[in-house]
Structure formats: C-alpha cells, structure tokens
C-alpha cells in the first residue's frame, strides 16, 4: 500500500463567496464556502484548496474568518492561497486554521520569501502555485503568468518550479492557464515537463472535464488532482472521480 492519490476540490473565494469563471474572467457565484467544504469532505475530498481572489485587505480578512469557520467543522487538510507576500501573511493564515499556504505572485516578486517561510514553518506548509501557459520565447516553451494569466512574468515555468523547490516549497500546484476552465483536460505535456524536474508532490490543475482526464493526470505523475468547475456545477462528484482512478489502478482513499 502506498500514499493515496489525492482529489482536491478548489474553491476560488471572492469576498467570502465561492466564484468560478473561465480563464479567471466572467466570475459566477458558486455558493457558500463553508457549506461547499462540508459537502466535499462528506463526499470523500482528501483536501481542500481555497484561492482568495479578493483584491482588498477587507476581503482577505473575510477569507481568514471563513477559513476559521471551515476548520471548525471540516477535518481534512485546508490549503489557502492568495495575497501571501511575507512570513507574517503565512502566520495569519495558519493561525486562522489553514494547514498549508499557497504562494504565487509574492514568490515571483521576491523569491527569497520562500526560504524565509520554509525556515520558520517548514517546507510542508508551503505550496507554490504556478499559473503557466505556452510561451514560445521561454527555453522550455512554458512561461509563468500573473494577474490571472493576463501578463507574462517573464520567467520559465520549469526553471521556476525547480528553483522554488531548491528554496524550500513542499509542494507544487501547477495550473495550466491554457486549459483552465475549458474542461478539455489537464495539460499533460506541461505536467510531464514539471514532473521531470521536481521531487515534491505535484498537484495537477486546470482543464478537468471528465473522469478520464483525472486518470491521464495521474498517469503523467501527478500526486494529486485539483478541480473546481466540474465539482461546483456537479458535472462530476469527488466519489465518481475516485472510482475512476481506482478502476484505472490508482490507490485512493
């Protein structure tokens, strides 16, 4: 027996509500985060990820309050990302009840913050969130984006993943901005490229539409698979995804 492949529903949170759009635009309300978290947990979710897309400090405070309410009733690991720039941001989220913290733009702006966070809290709390897409000018052909995929960070995605691991992230959440919200399948090519250079657990994100898509990501070496729309709009349940993975020969909880 080995560690099970994790299935992770992702909740994009804006001012305390779950939202979902295609390629980070056309946001639609998808429900109350705490209710959804409890439902997903009951349905067999192995972990939950909240990405706070609020732009204001009030919005961030609302998210921390929401995380605290979640941690009261949902006894599976909670990862929270969005707006993390300093060690103190991580501290606030962990105190609110997060088990792991996602970092994205903050690490691109100042990579040394990864070392600082890992030194204080250990690498197991830190998830590097990478929003990447095909970018012909990059050595690997994949570039990191910011601002919900609208801007190039001017950084090679594969090189960034490698550097972040050297600095001390404990996990990588690889989100394909080409595939995000399309339900056409995970970006297997990009997933495979990142898998080849990192040894930390790798979470595949962006593009899930069918059970077979999750199986493809697992075959490409993902340790966990993450999705939002298919779960929010109930085109798939967590249990159905796990059944599909089990049938394909992967260990699931």
């Amino acid at each position, binding site marked *: 027996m080995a560690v099970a492949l994790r299935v992770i529903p992702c909740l994009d949170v804006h001012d305390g509500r779950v939202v979902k759009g295609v390629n980070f635009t056309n946001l639609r309300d998808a429900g109350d985060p705490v209710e959804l978290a409890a439902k997903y947990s009951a349905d067999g979710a*192995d972990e939950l990820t909240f990405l706070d897309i609020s732009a204001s400090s009030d919005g961030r405070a609302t998210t921390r309050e929401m995380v605290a309410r979640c941690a009261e009733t949902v*006894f599976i690991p909670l990862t929270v990302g969005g707006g993390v720039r300093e060690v103190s941001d991580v501290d606030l989220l962990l105190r609110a009840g997060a088990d792991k913290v996602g970092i994205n733009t903050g690490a691109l702006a100042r990579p040394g913050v990864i070392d600082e966070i890992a030194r204080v809290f250990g690498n*197991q709390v830190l998830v590097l969130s990478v929003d990447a897409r095909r970018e012909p000018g990059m050595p690997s052909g994949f570039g990191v984006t910011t601002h919900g995929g609208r801007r190039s960070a001017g950084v090679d995605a594969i090189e960034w993943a490698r550097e972040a691991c050297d600095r001390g992230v*404990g996990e990588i959440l690889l989100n394909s901005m080409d595939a995000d919200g399309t339900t056409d399948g995970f970006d297997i090519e990009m997933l495979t490229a990142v898998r080849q250079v990192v040894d930390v657990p790798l979470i595949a994100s962006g593009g899930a539409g069918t059970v077979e898509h999750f199986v493809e990501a697992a075959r490409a070496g993902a*340790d966990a698979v993450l999705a939002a729309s298919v779960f929010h709009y109930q085109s798939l349940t967590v249990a159905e995804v796990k059944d599909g993975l089990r049938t394909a020969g992967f260990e699931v909880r």
Partner: protein
Amino acid sequence: MRRVGLLDYGSGNLHSAARALSVAGADVTVSSDLAELRTLDGLVVPGVGAFAACMDSLSRSGGADLIREWAAAERPLLGICVGHQVLFDQGHEHGLVTPGIGLYEGAVVALEARRLPHMGWNTVDPGDTEILFEGLHGERFYFVHSYAAPGPVTAVRAATAEHEGSRFVAAAQRGTVSSTQFHPEKSGAAGARLIANWLRGH
C-alpha cells in the same frame, strides 16, 4: 477521561486539534500555563515544522519538563506529528543532532524516499498498538512529514506505515504515552475515531 489540555508552546494549528478533541467528547483547554494544564486529566502535544525548532520552544516554555513529569506520573499523553517525534531520544536534521525528550529509544531521521514530503493519506499497520486503532483496520490517515523514526523501538508498541518501501513508526505507545506521526485531527472520520479511542482508553 474528559478534561484534556492542549499544550500551546507556539507550534502549529491548535484550532483543528482542539475542535477534533472536543467533537470526540473531550472538554478541551488550550493553554501555555503549566499550572493550569497540571489540573487536567490528559495532555495533547501538537507540533509542526522542524524537530530542533519544536524542541527549542518546548524547552524554553517548560513544556519539555511538563511532558517528562506527565509520563513519569503515568498520566495520559498524546503527541501529534512533531509532538510525536520529540518523544524520541534524538532528531537528526541537515547533519544537526538535537536531543529529544527521550521517552522512546532511538532517533528521528530523514525518510529514505524520492517523493518528499510524504504527504497525503496512507494506510497504517496497527502492530501491537491495539487500543488506538480499534475499529480502524484498513483506514487511511493524513501524513505530512519528511522525517520519521525507522523503528522497531525497544519497549515501545508501534504501528507502522510505508512510503516508497521505507517503513517507519506511524504511531507509538509506551505506558500511558501515545503518539502519532500522522494528524488524527486532519484525518476525517478515521482520525476522530482514533482520538475517541485514546480518550476512552484512559
């Protein structure tokens, strides 16, 4: 046992452990006040991050002495994650050897595996730790760590788990002291049952 103290020495997410204990029926007090904790029936020691950093906080807060005193008085104690690791003699990290509390023989060392941290839900072989795992055979628990005690450990009942072929101590029991490498407070219904088993066993 009902009245349980959760030792607050500046390490980790105490809310989840406190809530999970309370859902399992305990009357929980989260405190760094050693005198207050001494008035309670059971002690839970959480811990995340590095062995050396946790031991340092435990030593400076008086928590390490409280744990030794608690075990010597044969009172019920539950260590979680790094709170389990510090009960061993030593922790080895990056070439640095840190003395632990020493209730269990042996050292906590880096897991021999390519995929680290060992993160996620894994199965546990309960071994001879029958009380903690009653009704939980075949269940998975949530682990997140890169270091562990390889085991077996002299005079300690141990449950084990395996990651990439490396077997390690997943839970331990010696006298009234119990501890888990995994996070029962994050292990859903299985974790809740384990916590209830611990409470009922004392």
